[in-house]
């Protein structure tokens, strides 16, 4: 038995159908009587081939999924890991920034301070999410620092032949940069 038609607006708690008709999908739950209900305000959507019912939310809570590409700022660095604040995910700025950790690659010999610096803006990919702890990777070629900041004078670093150079104090820095480092137009599109 289906209580709500496909495409109809549903409120949280509204019964959608009996479990025998459609299995609960995204944003739906199953109550003790075998009825599938909506968890959020949205549009009911029935997938007749997979026999799954889901609700497309009106205002989805901002969430980060494994595989998402994120823009983040480095907050602190330890020997082999770095703590970052995720500012945007999947092309959307987060209203409430989230903390994540850069996971070191296998057999990593260099220190994390030779890969990123505090204050750097990076592009990373979410590779793990467990109990609210987000792990990101910057080891693929298109991932890494997109805008570096000088450790000494906080100026934005320029790309040089070998690594990055501070235009103010002349200090040289090691970073794992992306091919389009410093291209603000490209960064703005991400």
């Amino acid at each position, binding site marked *: 038995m289906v209580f709500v038609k496909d495409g109809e607006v549903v409120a949280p708690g509204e019964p959608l159908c009996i479990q025998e008709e459609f299995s609960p999908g995204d944003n739906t739950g199953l109550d003790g009587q075998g009825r599938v209900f909506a968890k959020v305000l949205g549009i009911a959507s029935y997938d007749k081939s997979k026999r799954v019912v889901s609700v497309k939310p*009106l205002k989805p809570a*901002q969430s980060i999924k494994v595989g998402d590409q994120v823009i983040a700022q480095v907050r602190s660095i330890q020997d082999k890991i770095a703590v970052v604040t995720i500012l945007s995910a999947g092309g959307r700025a987060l209203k409430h920034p989230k903390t994540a950790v850069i996971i070191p690659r296998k057999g990593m010999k260099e220190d994390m301070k030779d890969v990123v610096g505090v204050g750097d803006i990076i592009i990373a990919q979410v590779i793990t999410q467990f109990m609210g702890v987000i792990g990101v990777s910057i080891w693929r070629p298109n991932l890494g620092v997109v805008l570096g900041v000088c450790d000494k004078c906080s100026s934005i670093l320029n790309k040089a032949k070998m690594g990055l150079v501070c235009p103010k104090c002349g200090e040289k820095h090691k970073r794992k940069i992306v091919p389009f480092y410093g291209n603000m137009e490209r960064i703005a599109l991400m």
Partner: protein
Amino acid sequence: MSRPSRLIDENGKRVDGRRPDELRPIKMEVGVLDKSDGSAYVEFGGTKVIAAVFGPREAHPRHLALPDRAILNCRYHMTSFSVEERKPLGMTRREIELSKVIREALETVAFLEEFPRAAIDVYVEVVQADGGTRTAGLTAASLALADAGIPMADLIAAVAVGKVDGQLVLDLCDLEDKYGEADMPVAMAPRFNSIVMLQLNGRMTVEEFKKGLALAKKGIEVIYRLQREALKKKFSEISPEEV
């Protein structure tokens, strides 16, 4: 405000002209605030309440974060101008208690386990108080949570029943609350037919309690319908492309 000689007249009408089983005029609006993640405005006659939700966001301080679910912070507050005599700004014992009661009621329906190590803040501001502020606050908070996109098992609808001049009445106004013999706020998750909050000030017999609960359920059904309509009305104002 002094006590009227009778709270129910010879025609069975209450001080504001309602029948004993009649609700006050109700107005509900969702998404009234732009800056918060979810918000709602609820009016029960002269009682006016705004609720706002922030989150899910990172829990601060971090040591308060729970590894398996979000923490729900709730603040019920009456503005200084909500009552006849100016109310001091700080949180009173009553407001602290009601914040806890509202939080515990909301925790029964919100799927907090979907946001580990996060925090969700619920703010309930009573703009004008005319009886039934905790029930109006809870009704508004539930709508604001739904507007914020927090997954919920059901909405919460709440109303008070009381005993006035020996008679059971629904949705008490300020005069009935002050001078009546009993006041029983009830909040329910109507789909599950489960009571998520029940308090009782004053005295009722077992029979009166049963009748009062049935009366509250009747009122809650109406409020629940209005809640769903308010949420869907907001949806109709948004074009399908935006979803």
